[in-house]
């Protein structure tokens, strides 16, 4: 900085600490609520320090499920969330890497057309065509299946654009050299392009995993059986019984469990996360 005043630093630290406090407080409260018994939480006088029901609450949430709502235990929801988030992330990476490879490294009729057909999907998120998409999935008998949870959400151009951009930056000499060595399209992809793309793949994976994990409207529509619920919609269903009877301590334990995987991804893979976020927005 241009001038360095100690007072300036103190103000900066104060503002940032306040910011971190605002950001963390709702989660702190949820964490506290998940360690008290039901009566303490609904009394309206919940203390701001942890209670002693933590193990009990998490055990019940994960393995037994709510007593009043007879919902699925969270363990099954976690599995569903993991499968659909992984499926969305890996599926998107798979289809978009192949199509970007075709668009960048081959010349063929309708190449531009194919690219535009894919590109247009950027403009319309699934929310605006929600019922027609529901109908297609219902006609294909994919309601309450993992395919139904995954496939409609990977129809998007973000990955294709990202890989296309990345492939463009790879020096042409690499392809020339591979061809002189007698490598065909498969060898080049497998031995040269894939190893070079590892960081891009990882960055896209991180973003798409979070995107898939946090889906709400789509799983809400297409899952009718409790056993196919993802954890994000499971929490809400726990709360909307009749309001007074909702088991908030279990819902909060579930909320903490729902946050943990994606937040861990952001914190521990911060570099990849930031890279993925910046590059998918270009």
């Amino acid at each position, binding site marked *: 900085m*241009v001038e360095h005043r100690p007072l*300036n630093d103190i103000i*900066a*630290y104060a503002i*940032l600490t306040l*910011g*971190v406090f*605002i*950001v*963390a*407080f*709702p*989660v702190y*409260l*949820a964490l506290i*609520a998940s360690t008290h018994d039901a009566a303490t939480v*609904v009394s*309206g006088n919940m203390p701001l320090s942890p209670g002693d029901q933590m193990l009990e609450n998490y055990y019940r949430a994960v393995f037994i499920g709510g007593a009043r709502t007879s919902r699925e235990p969270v363990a099954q929801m976690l599995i569903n969330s993991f499968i659909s988030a992984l499926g969305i992330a890996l599926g998107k990476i798979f*289809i978009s890497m*192949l*199509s970007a490879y*075709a*668009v*960048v*490294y*081959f*010349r063929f009729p309708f190449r531009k057309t194919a690219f535009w057909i894919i590109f247009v999907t950027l403009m*319309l*998120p699934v*929310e605006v*065509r*929600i*019922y*027609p*998409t529901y*109908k*297609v999935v219902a006609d294909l008998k994919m309601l309450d299946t993992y395919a139904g949870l995954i496939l409609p959400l990977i*129809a998007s151009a973000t990955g294709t654009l990202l890989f296309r951009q990345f492939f*463009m930056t790879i020096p042409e000499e690499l392809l020339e050299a591979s061809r002189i060595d007698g490598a065909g*399209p498969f060898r080049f992809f497998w031995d040269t392009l894939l190893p070079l793309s590892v960081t891009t793949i990882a960055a896209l994976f991180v973003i798409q995993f*979070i995107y898939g*994990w*946090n*889906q*709400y409207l789509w799983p*809400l*529509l297409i899952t009718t059986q409790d056993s196919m619920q993802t954890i*994000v919609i499971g*929490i*809400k269903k726990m709360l909307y019984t009749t309001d007074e009877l909702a088991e908030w301590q279990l819902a909060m334990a579930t*909320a903490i469990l729902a*946050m943990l995987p*994606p937040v861990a*991804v952001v*914190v521990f893979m*911060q570099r990849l996360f930031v890279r993925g*976020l*910046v590059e998918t*927005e*270009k």
Partner: protein
Amino acid sequence: MEKSVVFNSKLLPYLLLIPQLIITFVFFYWPASQAVWQSFLREDAFGLTSEFVGLENYTTLLAQPEYYAAMMVTVVFSSLVAALSLSIALLFATQADKNLKAAGAYKTLMIWPYAVAPAVAGVLWIFMFHPSLGTLARPLRFMNFDWNPLLNGNHAMALVVMAAVWKQISYNFLFFLAGLQSIPKSVLEAGAIDGAGPLRRFWTITFPLLSPTTFFLLVVNVVYVFFDTFGIIDAVTGGGPAGATTTLVYKVFADGRLGGDLGGSAAQSVILMIIVIALTAIQFKYIERKVQY
């Protein structure tokens, strides 16, 4: 830029494109065109027959006071969320941009809410401000403030705005910080030599240089409010009370599902598509000129 060295295979590129094209056609083009087609149809109450009614769904929709109410809610909601989350994030980003020792740690502590699902964020906030059990509703009651987001439309709006802002600060913070760090320090030094204090330097140098980032974030935030806040609204208020937090996207969902009015819901979808395409067009136009300061 195009590659000049390529493979000469006739069939392979099509095979490579097939998975994405199939998924795009089945789950994107087919439903999107169905939405457009359905918006011109009217189904009977049992969904057995449908007849072509032209623009009737649109005229009915545009004659509904609820539709304009939802539009107003969307405008109010997006402006509040965008304005608040952008200015708060900018405040934090400018502080984190000062060469503090703990800047890295603060950055990590600020960005993680990005990973919290909107619906989960909504649940956290309704828990804090729940009229009967919320920890933060208690002091409000203590001050004789009749706080009830479940019954009062303005309170409900305030609550969804807070939850949406809370979740979006991290994203805006990250991009503002990157924008600030790309501003050359020499420009700020020149300003300091000319006698400009920190505040003056911010408003006359930093803020104008940051305008591309700000504009980009503005568009992204509006799109965020349109679509990603669905989970927040559904978890916190369910669009209520009395439609006070029913945004355009929420109305598409509610009319199609609860009301069963598929034609009207499709007409709303089509209008939304047009709005999103316009927003995206603005965004792309801007990105073309991104590097010009």
